[in-house]
């Protein structure tokens, strides 16, 4: 019963935050106006709503889903609550490829950038596979190699930034993750993937539940460890890769959302995955809304806002860990 309430409440919050996100911004729209513009297409605000804000909200939700679920899977695989797509270098790999496109092929058509970012995420996956001993993807090695890969790609990005200082702001913007200028075409290109991948991720919950117990238990319970790890990591990489390709490398959603969800419903993945997804979407919506109103008419990139929101939660987390360690 309590769990049902948690789900209902967080879903309600998502709806409320979507409405808030639709109404605030450099032009603020009152709720009645918002309602009539959503229903009829001929009010003065309907253009802003339908062409600018609605796609942003949809993308926020999709990216929040993708990143949060990717984080849940990774944390169970690495068996460490501090793992997340950005920590193991996925977002940096995607970012490096995006930077290459922005700098070296400035005239490329718009679909190339997300495709390149996706390719970067998969490259990191392949490298993780190659560098873990005998393709086993053992948890410790995956985490550490991922960190190293992230650092290498980071220096690659920095090299490009310094070599071509003219586009520096665009890359920095992409790097910290932004929803600025995202429209229906981005929704169309990411929506199918997320919608296909999410149910697949959810259907893996029995395996993820077993994974949490540790390698020995998993083996005893008849799990083909190495193969399952491969598929689950691939799933996580695809989810994170698609999200990052759409919105840029937004950090901390994949770290925070699974945490909050775990606090609320515990570690069983059949509940954890959907709740983490909803919470991820909520965090995205909040961060985007705040980022848009904090210094009108400019925007704070949503990735910076997630970091700022993430910081207090991090400190809270750390106090808890500290108490537990004692």
């Amino acid at each position: 019963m309590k769990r049902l309430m948690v789900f209902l409440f967080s879903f309600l919050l998502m709806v409320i935050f979507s409405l808030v996100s639709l109404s605030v911004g450099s032009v603020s729209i009152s709720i009645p106006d918002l309602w009539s513009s959503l229903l009829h297409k001929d009010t003065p605000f309907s253009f802003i709503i339908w062409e600018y804000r609605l796609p942003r909200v949809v993308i926020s939700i999709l990216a929040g889903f993708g990143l949060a679920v990717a984080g849940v899977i990774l944390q169970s695989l690495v068996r460490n609550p501090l793992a997340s797509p950005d920590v193991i270098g996925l977002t940096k790999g995607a970012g490096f490829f995006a930077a290459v496109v922005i700098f070296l092929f400035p005239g490329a058509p718009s679909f190339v950038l997300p495709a390149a970012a996706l390719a970067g995420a998969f490259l990191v996956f392949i490298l993780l596979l190659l560098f873990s001993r005998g393709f086993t993807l053992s948890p410790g090695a995956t985490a550490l190699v991922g960190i190293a890969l992230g650092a290498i790609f980071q220096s690659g990005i920095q090299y490009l930034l310094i070599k071509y200082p003219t586009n520096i702001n665009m890359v920095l913007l992409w790097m910290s993750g932004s929803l600025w200028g995202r429209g229906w075409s981005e929704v169309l290109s990411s929506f199918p993937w997320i919608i296909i991948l999410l149910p697949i991720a959810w259907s893996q919950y029995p395996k993820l539940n077993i994974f949490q117990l540790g390698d020995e238990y998993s083996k005893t319970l008849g799990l083909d460890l190495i193969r399952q790890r491969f598929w689950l990591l691939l799933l996580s990489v695809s989810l994170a890769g698609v999200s990052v390709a759409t919105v840029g490398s937004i950090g901390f959603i994949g770290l925070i959302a699974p945490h909050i969800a775990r606090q609320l419903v515990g570690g069983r993945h059949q509940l954890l995955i959907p709740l983490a997804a909803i919470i991820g979407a909520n965090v995205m919506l909040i961060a985007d809304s705040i980022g848009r109103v904090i210094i009108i008419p400019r925007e704070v990139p949503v990735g910076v806002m997630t970091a700022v929101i993430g910081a207090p939660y991090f400190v809270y987390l750390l106090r808890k860990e500290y108490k537990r360690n004692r």
Partner: protein
Amino acid sequence: MYKFAVRKQKPKTFLLLLFSVTLFSIVLGFLISLKWGQAVISWRTLFEAVTYQGQEKEHLYIQTLRMPRILTAFVIGIHMSLAGLLTQMITRNPIASPHIFGINAGASLSVVIGLIMFSNFSLTTSIYFAFIGAALGALLVISLAGIQQKQHVQLALAGIAVHFLLSSITEGLIIMNQYSTDSMMFWLVGAVDQAGWLEIKTILPWFTIGIVLFLFMLPSFKLLLLDDDVAVGLGQRILFVKLIGMLIVVILAGSAVATCGPISFVGLLVPHIARSLVGSKLGMLVPLTGLFGGMLLVYADFLSRFIAFPYESPVGILTAVIGGPFFIYLARKKGASPS
């Protein structure tokens, strides 16, 4: 748990040879860095400039640009590698370094905040800012992972998460504040090319304090190599020693970051190389680590001039390219052990 390999005592001739080769390479590195770069200087002019005999343009170029720059690279290399060695000893964790410990990111964030908030932000104040930031970063990571923690993966994940948190806030500040984005980016990668005599003068007191403290505490640090229980049994106040150790790390790394930006991976790489050569005997390990660090950075700085010749590239890129693969090697070795 990771144990530092106990090696046999190396013969004296080997050590003598090792140190003389190192010193020779350092001198050689100084010379080639002075001679080659954007402008090629003849040996004769070089000699005159170093002995302060000429007043030509080329002499001044050497005296005011290249000499302080190379000296800074050397000093920063010593700072970073000793800070790395000390973090590895304190946490007894082979993959610890100021970078992984959130120290670099914390220092950079607070320096960037200072640069944005105050218009007349001098280097001396930026060092104090860096100290505060470095200490906060280290504190965050320690409280997430625990200082007694023997789990490599936990420390690395906590450190890198804090690193990302702090650096994305830094990036956000830079995006929002569009003044001097380029120069700040350059600094954020870690570069010594802007360093002049002023930088040397500012960092020198901290260099002295750091090294003297380090040497003073050396006998106590020897006990960090033992298990905590054993050290306590021997009458050491282990927590106190670790705290002083962290203080030294913050002084060394913080002042280095304030001067030249967060140059990554030197602190991780160098102690390992030194340890593989002389073992974990501190009397040999500490000086060799320092010298190697200085040497590495002098050569890295020299090479970084040619990455995008005739433009300068920050030396931090080069150290990351060298250090990253080494980290992967370490990760493969250590990640196989139970996390």
